[in-house]
């Protein structure tokens, strides 16, 4: 699975679905090789556990531009309090010069603002914010694009082709950027994380969730750091997973093949049919409004 409801032995991060990353995606914009789409989904089973983004959290997409497994660029998403059914987002981009350190958001005062006061969508219509340089942004309630026979997995890989996520929703964050905002080297590594204020030091942030490759934390990396959890992506290529990840990429089948040495080839579940052909690509939610 992706990282819905988190890995074995772990509780939902900070027991807060709002910062629980379910999936993230990075792919070349269909029809425009000069742009990249990055999507970060949180809040599994929304709106069962939460109906908003967390206002004091920082949602982050990190980009490694020189293949040293350290982030060089950060895209940061922050949200206002939800008031009278409205919430707004701000997106910044930071070029990082030092390694990440818990408690601090490195380079935050030199951040470049990409998007300001973007409305969060809580209904069926996706409100898209257009910014300079062809940047587009969306945040809000959407259909969960992930597909997987969860029951078959729980039943010891006895798959029946039943897609547990077919009618589930998430809160999605989608950003469309010109490739140059990802640096000069087309071979990048991308991962996402969420940070929340420390309990005893609320002015400091601590990471509560990180995700790179789908399934790594949940299935293959439960408790041990066996692999660097980074999604590799060549933004000049339109190929999908393992080059980045598109919504329709069957990461479960690929992972099953790898981990079972070909003995289990598929969970029998294919991509959803509700993906949009255009930004933000995430389908209409299964209930009209939250």
């Amino acid at each position, binding site marked *: *699975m992706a990282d819905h*409801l*988190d*890995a*074995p*032995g*772990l*509780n*939902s991060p900070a*027991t807060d*679905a709002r910062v629980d990353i379910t999936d993230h995606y990075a792919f070349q914009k269909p029809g425009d090789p000069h742009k990249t789409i990055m999507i970060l989904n949180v809040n599994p*089973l929304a709106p*069962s*556990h939460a109906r908003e983004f967390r206002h004091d959290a920082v949602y982050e997409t990190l980009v490694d531009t020189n293949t040293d497994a350290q982030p060089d660029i950060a895209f940061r998403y922050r949200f206002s309090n939800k008031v009278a059914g409205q919430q707004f987002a701000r997106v910044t981009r930071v070029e990082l010069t030092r390694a990440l350190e818990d408690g601090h958001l490195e380079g935050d005062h030199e951040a470049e603002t990409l998007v300001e006061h973007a409305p969060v969508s809580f209904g069926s219509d996706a409100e898209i914010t257009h910014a300079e340089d062809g940047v587009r942004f969306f945040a809000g309630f959407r259909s969960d694009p992930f597909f997987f026979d*969860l*029951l*078959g*997995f*729980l*039943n*010891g*890989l*006895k798959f029946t082709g*039943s897609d*547990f996520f077919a009618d*589930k929703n998430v809160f999605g964050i989608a950003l469309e950027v010109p490739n140059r905002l990802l640096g000069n080297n087309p071979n990048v590594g991308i991962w996402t994380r969420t940070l929340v204020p420390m309990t005893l030091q609320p002015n400091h942030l601590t990471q509560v969730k990180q995700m790179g490759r789908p399934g790594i934390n*949940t*299935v293959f990396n*439960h408790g041990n750091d066996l692999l660097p959890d980074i999604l590799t992506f060549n933004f000049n290529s339109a190929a999908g997973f393992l080059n980045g990840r598109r919504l329709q990429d069957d990461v479960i089948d690929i992972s099953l093949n790898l981990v079972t040495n070909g003995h289990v080839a598929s969970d029998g579940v294919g991509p959803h049919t509700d993906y949009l052909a255009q930004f933000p690509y995430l389908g209409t939610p299964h209930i009209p409004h939250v």
Partner: protein
Amino acid sequence: MQHMNRRSMFKLAGAGSAMVAGAALPVVGRLATEQANRFGFKATLGLPEPPLPSYATYVVEGNLDLDTGTGLMTSRMLAGHPGAPSEIGLPGLTRVIKVVGVDRQEGDKLAVHGIVEDRSQLQPGESPQVELLIDRRRGVVHAPFADRSVTLSIG
């Protein structure tokens, strides 16, 4: 009390407690008999089972009246490993089961027959009839999951 030291007071308190307990014995005995005809349990199993990492916790719990063969049970799937289950139930996997019969079997086992009255809880093709076998001596419950029986530990 004025000349009584603390040790004496404890002795007296102890004797008093014994007297109270003795007086209450018939009542306690009757309750114990009634309790013997009731059985409450909570059993769990991590799924998927090893060698795969357990991603969720299957929980079956309930209370049975062994005299009347009635009771109520629930089965549900919680996100998280059995050592640290969350309070997040995976949707569509909770069942409320009305107990319609309990058969005592050899070896302190209970065969429990139940029914899911609310059919909207069922997956397509899933039977509303539920059969459980509780092995009280071994502390396990054999319960259906998907197309097979799994063994949960009472704890």
